[in-house]
């Protein structure tokens, strides 16, 4: 069965279905990874797997119920029991609140019957020797390298009893490199997202980090307080991702998010920033391509299994600084009177600026330059107050120059407030969100200048 083509499994599962409706999702997954610490590889791995998800829908007097069952390593003997289990779950359950007619009218993917795309350790054929060279250079330069390189490919096949036959291949690669001094009192980090590892060179990143470790040779202690701060694109990405998690239209209408309006309704149309910020998602964004249709393995606040196959359009969440759109499923769109806006597969923030981060540093009289944020958690959903820490390098900028490394800080800030206070947005560039990179990698962000970023306390962590 494992050698059977995914589309054949999808077709067979649909044939076995006796429910009123059926959605079958076959995910063919492969991955390869390398991990290292102290200039030496520590673990590595290659994986190959298949997960089959069957969503059965059963119509009843009070509505339509759904049953969702997933299995990995499905064999021929497992297929019928899997379909029956989904049907049984649907028949045993109450009607699904998000029930909608299954999506129709989407043209079939031309490659639906092709075999899945795969990755393997071969993706590192050129990268692995370069990594070894980076280790050797780091050792010679008095640096220790830590990090992780991961490449995965997921080919998703969706078939439905309403006639959809869709397929999407999603490559996903990340490189994270952390350099430390041997006494571990200086630390620097860089990360990249990549689709195929042909465009990332660990020796180049190591050279960048060597410069940063050099900046850190002068230590400057600063107390907690509000500082002019340059947030690099990776930090902005982590904050915007969290903001999008809180962008459910239904929750906002119900009065329980930062985007709820006192007195009822939402803050849609409200000016969030004086800068001409546009926050958008686009499945066809070059280098950040994501699924052009909904792939939902289960229903939740921002996803509905009934929406599988629904087109994901390019969407502007913030336009010209105004809140323009909140996320909806077809069901929550009906409830809230908002347009259908499925969740995001990539995020792009554009502020109209064209200065690089280096140029923004050069234009700074006195401020902090951060490397990245870490351990970001929500403190108060009403303001979307988040806490977290700076990590792997906070640098003091004076008169346009980095003059030394500052201690780390804990921050307490709301990304929504930060957008309102940002005084400059730099040039948008592709970046790897560090905090959330284990699941979200497709982002392009500018650096932001915040005049008064709240560093709540000092962290001794390095």
């Amino acid at each position, binding site marked *: 069965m494992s050698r059977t083509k995914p589309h054949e499994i999808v077709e067979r599962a649909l044939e076995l279905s006796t429910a009123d409706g059926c959605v079958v999702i076959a995910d063919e997954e492969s991955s390869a990874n390398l991990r290292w610490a102290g200039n030496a590889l520590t673990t590595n791995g290659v994986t190959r797997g298949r997960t089959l998800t069957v969503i059965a829908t059963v119509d009843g007097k009070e509505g339509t119920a759904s049953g969702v069952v997933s299995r990995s390593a499905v064999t021929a003997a497992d297929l019928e029991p899997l379909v029956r289990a989904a049907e049984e779950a649907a028949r045993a359950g109450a009607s699904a609140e998000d029930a909608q007619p299954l999506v129709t009218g989407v043209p079939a993917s031309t490659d639906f019957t092709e075999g899945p795309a795969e990755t393997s350790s071969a993706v590192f054929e050129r990268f692995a020797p370069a990594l070894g060279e980076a280790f050797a250079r780091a050792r010679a330069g008095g640096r220790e390298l830590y990090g992780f390189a991961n490449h995965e490919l997921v080919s998703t096949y969706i078939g439905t009893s309403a006639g959809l036959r869709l397929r999407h291949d999603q490559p996903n690669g990340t490189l994270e490199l952390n350099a430390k001094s041997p006494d571990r009192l200086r630390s620097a980090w860089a990360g990249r997202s990549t689709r195929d590892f042909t465009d990332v060179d660990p020796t180049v990143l190591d050279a960048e980090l060597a410069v940063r470790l050099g900046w850190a040779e002068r230590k400057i202690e600063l107390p907690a307080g509000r500082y002019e701060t340059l947030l690099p694109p990776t930090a902005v990405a982590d904050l915007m991702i969290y903001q999008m998690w809180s962008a459910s239209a239904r929750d906002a209408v119900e009065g329980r998010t930062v985007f709820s309006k006192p007195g009822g309704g939402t803050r849609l149309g409200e000016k969030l920033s004086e800068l001409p910020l546009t926050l958008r998602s686009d499945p066809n964004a070059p280098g950040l391509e994501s699924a052009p249709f909904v792939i939902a393995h*289960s229903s939740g606040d921002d996803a509905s299994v009934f929406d599988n196959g629904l087109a994901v359009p390019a969407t502007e969440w913030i336009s010209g600084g105004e809140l323009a759109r909140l996320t909806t499923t077809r069901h929550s769109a009906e409830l809230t009177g908002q347009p259908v806006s499925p969740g995001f597969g990539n995020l792009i923030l554009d502020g109209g600026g064209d200065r690089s981060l280096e140029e923004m540093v050069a234009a700074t009289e006195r401020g902090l330059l951060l490397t990245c944020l870490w351990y970001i958690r929500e403190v108060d959903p009403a303001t979307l107050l988040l806490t977290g820490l700076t990590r792997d390098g906070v640098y003091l900028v004076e008169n346009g120059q980095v003059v030394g490394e500052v201690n780390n800080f804990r921050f307490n800030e709301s990304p929504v407030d930060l957008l309102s206070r940002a005084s400059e947005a730099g040039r948008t560039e592709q970046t790897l969100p560090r905090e959330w990179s284990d699941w979200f990698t497709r982002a392009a962000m500018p650096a932001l200048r915040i005049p008064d970023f709240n560093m709540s306390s000092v962290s*001794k*962590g390095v």
Partner: protein
Amino acid sequence: MIGATGPDPGRNSVPHSIDAAFTALPLRALADAALARARALGSDHADFRLERVRSASWRLRDAKPSGGSDSTDLGYAVRVVHGGSWGFASGVDLTMDGAAKVASQAVAMAKLSARVIKAAGSDERVELADEPVHADKTWISAYDVNPFEVPDAEKSALLADWSARLLAADGVAHVDASLLAVHENKFYADTAGTVTTQQRVRIHPQLTAVAVDAATGGFDSMRTIAPPAGRGWEYLTGTGWDWNAELEGIPDLLAEKMRAPSVRAGRYDLVVDPSNLWLTIHESIGHATELDRALGYEAAYAGTSFATFDQLGTLTYGSSIMNVTGDRTAEHGLATIGYDDEGVEAQSWDLVKDGTLAGYQLDRRIAKLTGLGRSNGCAYADSPGHVPVQRMANVSLRPDPGGLSTEDLIGGVERGIYVVGDRSWSIDMQRHNFQFTGQRFFRIENGRLAGQLRDVAYQATTTDFWGSMEKVGGPQTYVLGGAFNCGKAQPGQVAAVSHGCPSALFRDVNILNTTQEAGR
């Protein structure tokens, strides 16, 4: 130094058998094929792990089903030490040829590692601490009713009933309910001859009531504080937690919270309830005493630790009444096992003794590397597709055998705050600086509770906080808390872990007002 004591791997509250559908899989044959191939290719060590992990969720929004899933992850992994390097591969093809092929891939990955290590000019070699051979062992966790044998309709009906009870109360605008359940089977075999077969069940019900003040735009929530548990369906029907009592109290607590005054920032004495303290223990002690972190193996991701190896036996972690154990044997613990994912028998040992760092959590490689002798059994992989890494045991603060009740601890505070339930948590990458919030904060005035406070967060440095612990509550205050979702490693893995603790009194802790922190 590592005071290991052996468990009774066979104990159960109710006798169960390993699921017959799991044992019917060709476990031995696949293991033999993989290990034989690894041996033939010259591996110094090889282990084979076949897992079936079934995870399901049921979610309700305002008492109506809003989504659910039922996923089973089945597959196997081969890990080798070959030429002094690790190699790992996993697969799903349940044939002898497939298992042998995966073993070959693992050896190929070890060779790739060796090339990179050689290019870097390193002479590092992987070696494993010795472990007695455990041949043909089985172990099953303590539970009564497998939640997957309870009809889904019964689960949804109970959650709907609980939700409806909350929704019926004045001031409750919305209720979110969820139930997570996991049934985990593992088969392990290695080239030394250890063969183990295990079965674990865990469950986590949770309900959150939301109040909304439409006029002001204000809202807040109150969540149940019942912890996840290594128990079965019986946990929802009266064993281990009084759900009726907890649900009955929530609407009034939420209403009071909506009316509560905002805290004045400053320094306060804190009585911290186990429902909150477990998470502080997890972040500031559990992760800090993982020796792989302290040595730098998580440096690029989860971070390192201030509790470095050179300070073992000398670091003052907290006050002299602080005693913390690592324990993989606690009944109903989420990290409780019979044997870990390297075939090491479960143990219990000291991490902090009388306030001093006394031990670490180990796997076989780290134990050998540091000369600590035997591993204490902390290797775990969350799926057949992931390599075992050093993961947290149940890390628990011991109660004072003659200690006070929570009420008596509160009675000893003139001006302070009683903290109940966890909410947000964050700590730096060396485990110094942390900030936590909670579900409920009660003002303490002259030894008595004087109503709730809002907008409270406590922020401290780990050793200062534990150094300020003046009293540890008695066994009557002890609760086994925990979480399903502890994250670590790259590729990312999640592990379930429990933390037992009593109530405890901390003096002079920094309290923030979160509204002021937001600049309002």
